[in-house]
C-alpha cells in the first residue's frame, strides 16, 4: 500500500493557498479577456481593463489579486488505497496556516461567529473529503471571498416551481447581489439533494472550468440560458452598468426527494480562485 507523509500534504496545501491567491486559473483569465472584448458599454469596458491590469500587477509584485484572501475551502479526493502517515485533517490545517503566513495572505477567520476573535492564521479551513478509488490524493484549494459569499442564497422550492422557479431564484439572487460581489461574477448553481447537500453542490460548481459545460445537454442548455439572462440584467462590471454581469455559470445536480426542489446559488466574484495539485 502506498504511504504518504502528512508533511507532504501540508506543503502542497500551503503552496496551493499562495498560488490560488496570486494567479487566476487559465479558464477564468480567458473568460475575463473575452468579457473585455464583448463588453459594448465603454465605462464597463474600462472597469474590465482595470481588472486585467490588476492581474498583471499581482503577478509582477507577487501580491494577492484581492486583499480578501478568503475563507479557505479545501476539496480533497482521497484514494482509498492510500495510507496517510499522521493526521490528515490537521495536515491540511497546518498547510493553510503555513501558506497564509508564508504568502503574506490576510487572516480573515474568527474563531466564533458571535464573539469574533481572529484566529490569526486563517484556520480552520472548510475541508471536503471524497473517498475515491486509487492511491492518489488530489487537492483543490478555493479561497472564498465573503463579499460574494454573503450574497449567496439557498431556497427549498416546491416541485411545482420547477425550472421556472429555479430560473427566477437565480435571477433574483444575482439582482439582489448587485455590486456587492464585485461583478463580473461566477455563479455556482446547485439543484437537488438535501438542504445541506445543495449548498455544497453550489460551492463545488465553482470548481468547474468556465470553458466547459454540463455533460447533460439539458443542463448545458440551462447553463447557457441562465448566463444569457443574467447578462441582460444590466448590472455590469462593478455594478455600474454594462452587459457583462457574469463570466460563467455552472450547474451541479443531485437526486432529490419527491416533495422537494432544493436550489442554492453560490456567487463568486471575478477573482474566482482555485488551484489544484496531486500527491
Amino acid at each position, binding site marked *: 500500500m502506498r504511504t504518504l507523509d502528512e508533511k507532504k500534504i501540508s506543503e502542497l496545501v500551503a503552496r496551493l493557498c499562495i498560488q490560488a491567491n496570486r494567479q487566476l486559473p487559465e479558464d477564468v483569465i480567458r473568460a475575463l479577456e473575452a468579457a473585455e472584448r464583448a463588453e459594448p*458599454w465603454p465605462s464597463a469596458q474600462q472597469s474590465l481593463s482595470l481588472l486585467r491590469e490588476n492581474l498583471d*500587477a499581482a503577478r509582477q*509584485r507577487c501580491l*494577492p489579486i484581492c*486583499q480578501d484572501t478568503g475563507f479557505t475551502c479545501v476539496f480533497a479526493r482521497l484514494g482509498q488505497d492510500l495510507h496517510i502517515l499522521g493526521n490528515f485533517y490537521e495536515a491540511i490545517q497546518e498547510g493553510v496556516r503555513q501558506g497564509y503566513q508564508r504568502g503574506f495572505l*490576510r487572516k480573515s477567520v474568527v474563531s466564533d461567529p458571535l464573539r469574533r476573535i481572529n484566529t490569526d492564521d486563517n484556520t480552520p479551513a472548510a475541508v471536503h473529503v471524497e473517498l475515491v478509488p486509487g492511491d492518489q490524493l488530489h487537492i483543490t484549494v478555493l479561497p472564498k471571498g465573503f463579499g460574494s459569499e454573503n450574497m449567496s442564497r439557498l431556497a427549498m422550492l416546491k416541485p411545482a416551481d420547477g425550472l421556472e422557479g429555479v430560473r427566477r431564484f437565480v435571477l433574483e439572487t444575482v439582482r439582489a447581489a448587485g*455590486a456587492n460581489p*464585485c461583478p463580473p461574477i461566477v455563479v455556482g448553481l446547485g439543484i437537488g439533494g438535501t438542504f445541506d447537500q445543495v449548498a455544497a453542490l453550489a460551492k463545488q460548481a465553482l470548481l468547474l472550468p468556465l470553458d466547459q459545460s454540463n455533460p447533460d445537454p439539458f443542463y448545458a442548455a440551462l447553463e447557457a440560458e441562465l448566463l444569457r439572462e443574467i447578462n441582460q440584467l444590466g*448590472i455590469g462590471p462593478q455594478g455600474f452598468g454594462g452587459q457583462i454581469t457574469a463570466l460563467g455559470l455552472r450547474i451541479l445536480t443531485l437526486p432529490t426527494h419527491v416533495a422537494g426542489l432544493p436550489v442554492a446559488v453560490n456567487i463568486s*466574484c471575478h477573482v474566482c480562485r482555485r488551484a489544484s495539485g496531486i500527491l
Partner: protein
Amino acid sequence: MEYRLHTPLAQQEILRLRAGDRVLLTGTVYTARDAAHQRLIACLDQGAPLPFPLSDSVIYYAGPTPEAPDQVIGSAGPTTSGRMDSYTPRLLEQGLRVMIGKGDRSPAVRESIRRWGAVYLAAPGGAGALLAACVENVRLICWEDLGCEAIRELQVRDMPLLVAIDSEGQDLYTEGPAAYLSHRDEK
C-alpha cells in the same frame, strides 16, 4: 468628467463631482472597516478624542493583506461599504466628507451624503494589487490589535476612483445600469 484631486478636498471640489466622474486621488486616506468603525463610534459616544480628525479626512474601507518585507503594503482593495452604513451618518454629521469603498449604500447614507454635501467614491472591487501600486507610504495610526482592520494612514498617488454617490444624492449604482439598459433598448 475626469479630475485629478489632492487631499484635503475643498468643499467646492466635492460639490462639483457628479456620479460617474472619474477621479485620480492623491494624498492621505485613512483605512477603517467594521471593527474600527465600531470603535470610532464608541469614541464619539464617550466624548473621547478620535485617532484622526474626521473633517477634511478621507476614509477608505479597506483591510490590506500583510506586506512582505520589501513591500510598502499588501493587496489593498476596497471592502463592501454597506457594512459600514449604520455608522456612516454619524461620521458625516461629525465632519467626514469623503468615503472610498465598493458597493451601494443604504437610502439613509445616500440622504446624509446629500445633506452634508459629501461624496462616496468607488474603488475597483477585487483590484487589490493594482490599488496597492498606488500606495506610496503607510503609517499605523491606532488599534493594532485589530490586525488588518487597524487604522492606517496611506499616502496614495493617482488612486483610480469613480464617483458613486455625489453631493446631490445621484447614485451610479442605480443610474449606471439604468443608462446602459436604456441605451441598449434604444438600439
